[in-house]
């Protein structure tokens, strides 16, 4: 029904509808006007169809008229002039310019984008599968549970590593402190998105971040179990290390998905860069702190209680056999210098 009605309207009205968007300098949409009359006046005074507050714009700056099935711009001999300012095109005077779909014109310090109503729009963006996950995680109950879980794990880690007896409050304070510290990240992201005129969505940021932090604890435990159960020749531990990189990337991706509108490609680039900065940066710090010569051996002494033991042990023969390879390796190193 509606489709037919729309066709009828276009046939009856000889004027082509013009959409005029007020945009900011970095092409963010500020206002949108849809006009359906043969002559459109734009300027600073209150007679205009579109009133601009920009002091560099003249009271009646330009008019856009529908002549011979075309829209034409007329500059009213303004102080600062009017220019066609298309991306990838040389800036030129807009007087007598025939409007094309998508043209950007600048008046004073303001910019307008001119669009015809048949301008093709981007295809509809489907909800990401993460949407339901985000909605679940920002639910107050889920949020409370994940933050409580995080605090509990932080507290138990403090407990396990303290070589002296500790009471509840001695664990509670650092655990809460750690939770607050980790909450700074989602809060910071929410603040930045609020400042950049987007929805802050603090609850969603908190919920998703703490869910991911908890997954990181989990992958840590998994990594410890794998290193505990494997010998130094095992490559499985490298894959497990990789999961923490993936988790960090997912966290940054979700943060930017919740907080900022950006293209898919840009979001991937941004989250990959932050991940790289985080892991590359910490690797660089470690690398720069590494002494030229370390008189101590650097070995992996991961041990866990017997219930985490899932593999069979090697025999002494196998161990001696594998250890004997180290002699050739170090001797080669000694002779190469």
């Amino acid at each position, binding site marked *: 029904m509606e489709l037919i009605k729309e066709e009828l309207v276009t046939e009856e009205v000889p004027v082509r509808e013009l959409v005029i968007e007020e945009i900011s300098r970095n092409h963010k949409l500020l206002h949108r006007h849809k006009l359906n009359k043969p002559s459109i006046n734009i300027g600073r005074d209150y007679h205009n169809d579109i009133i601009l507050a920009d002091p560099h714009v003249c009271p009646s700056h330009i008019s856009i008229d529908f002549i011979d099935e075309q829209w034409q711009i007329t500059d009213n001999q303004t102080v600062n002039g009017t220019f066609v300012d298309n991306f990838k095109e040389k800036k030129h005077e807009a007087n007598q310019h025939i409007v094309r779909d998508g043209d950007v014109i600048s008046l004073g310090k303001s910019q307008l984008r001119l669009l015809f109503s048949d301008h093709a729009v981007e295809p509809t963006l489907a909800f990401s599968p993460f949407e339901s996950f985000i909605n679940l995680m920002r639910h107050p109950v889920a949020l409370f549970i994940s933050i409580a879980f995080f605090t509990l794990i932080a507290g138990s880690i403090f*407990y*396990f*590593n303290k*070589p*002296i*007896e500790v009471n509840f409050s001695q664990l509670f304070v650092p655990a809460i402190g750690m939770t607050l510290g980790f909450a700074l990240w989602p809060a910071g992201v929410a603040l930045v998105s609020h400042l950049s005129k987007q929805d802050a969505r603090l609850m969603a940021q908190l919920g998703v971040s703490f869910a991911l932090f908890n997954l990181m604890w989990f992958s840590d435990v998994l990594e410890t179990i794998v290193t*505990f*159960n494997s*010998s*130094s*020749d095992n490559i499985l531990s490298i894959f497990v290390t990789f999961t923490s990189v993936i988790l960090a990337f997912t966290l940054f991706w979700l943060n930017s998905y919740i907080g900022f509108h950006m293209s898919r490609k840009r979001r991937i680039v941004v989250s990959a860069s932050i991940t790289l900065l985080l892991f590359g940066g910490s690797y660089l710090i470690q690398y720069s702190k590494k002494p*030229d*010569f*370390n*008189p*101590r*051996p*650097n*070995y*992996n*002494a*991961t*041990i*866990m*209680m*017997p*219930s985490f*033991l899932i*593999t*069979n*042990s*090697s*025999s*002494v023969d*196998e*161990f*001696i056999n*594998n*250890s*004997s*390879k*180290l*002699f050739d*390796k*170090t*001797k080669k*190193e*000694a*002779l190469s*210098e």
Partner: protein
Amino acid sequence: MKAFFTLVFIVLSSSSFATEQAEQLFNQLKPSLYQIKLIDKASGEKSSIGSGFQISKDGIIATNYHVISSYALHPKKYRIEYLNSEGETGLLALQSVDVINDLALVKRKMDSISSDDIAFFQLSKSTPHKGEKLFSLGNPHDLGMIVVPGTYNGLKKESFNQRIHFTGSINSGMSGGPVVNKQAEVVGINVATSGNSIGFLVPHDKLESLYQAFLQAVPESIEQQMAAQLTANQNKLMNEILNSPWQAKSLGKHGTIPIIDVPFIRCWGDSNADKADALILTAVANCSLDENTYLSSRFFTGSMEIEFRYMQAKDIGANKFYHLYQQQIAHAGAGNRAGKDNVTQYQCHHDLVMPSNQTINNKSIFCTRAYKKFPDLFDVLYLSASIDKNKQALVSHFTIAGVDQKNALAFTRKFMEAVSWN
């Protein structure tokens, strides 16, 4: 705790009463005593000093290896000079060393005219008897040649390489000086002090055999000679250790550990049983070889340490026990001092290992680093932590410095099979 020896670097006040006998001896021997100086070529100043004494007509002077060690390792950086009783100086050439017994032979250029005049020390044909009066000669702290009377107290009991226990103050700078009996025959060479008039000497027969070997054949390269001596010494040591009885001993409630029954490995123990607030009861036994071989001031080898640790959780769960237990085993270090120029970095292998007796399951770590100047010699480190009991743990650990691959692995294998639960 462990007795601590320094290589004659400790200052002691010496009561220099000189008996008539000592005075007579000193005057007789003075011409063939030397101060040995290592001169840094670039700065032209001395970098270390010691003493030496002539043992042959053709100008062979005996001293300690540690006096000239810098030259032996970096011959281009230093030169060796002597200063005799007349105040004359001259160059010395390094001829032969014995790093294990800390001895070196250097040669002085002799003029044909003066060679007849110079007396030289005779090496004693017999060993002294306990309580015999001896006289140590040397130049402590660059103060001039002195004579120190003292007493022979036999050979040091727990040493693998023999040392004479001499009661008399030996000081820094006297290293390499001779110790003579009343007949002015050399019975030992000053080498180390343990403070409070406890001195150590290298027995004269070590010098005798070094000199005889030198007369047979002059070593082509000092470095190769050192490598051969280090290799032979570790073979001798490891053979004796591997072929000695290893006695099973219990540690804590349920641990069984081996104690190697040789006099030169001494064991000490400690526990925290007196600390009521400790979360983990810990009993530690450590055994070590009471000596090491000096290669340079930053490079020692030939040492051996063995440590066992039994731990039992008191009022904590298994998870916490294992967290604290891991902290205990995370920082094992080398047993000997060595730098970037001497050794490579450690390379490690770790795995879960169950010995053939099936009574214990361990996480075992084996690390080794190679010597840059002496190929085929390595420092090894082994650490093993039991992972099969919820609230008890047994850690076994050793380090051996300057050992070859065959001996290191043979020792590791025997050691791994000897640690278990009972």
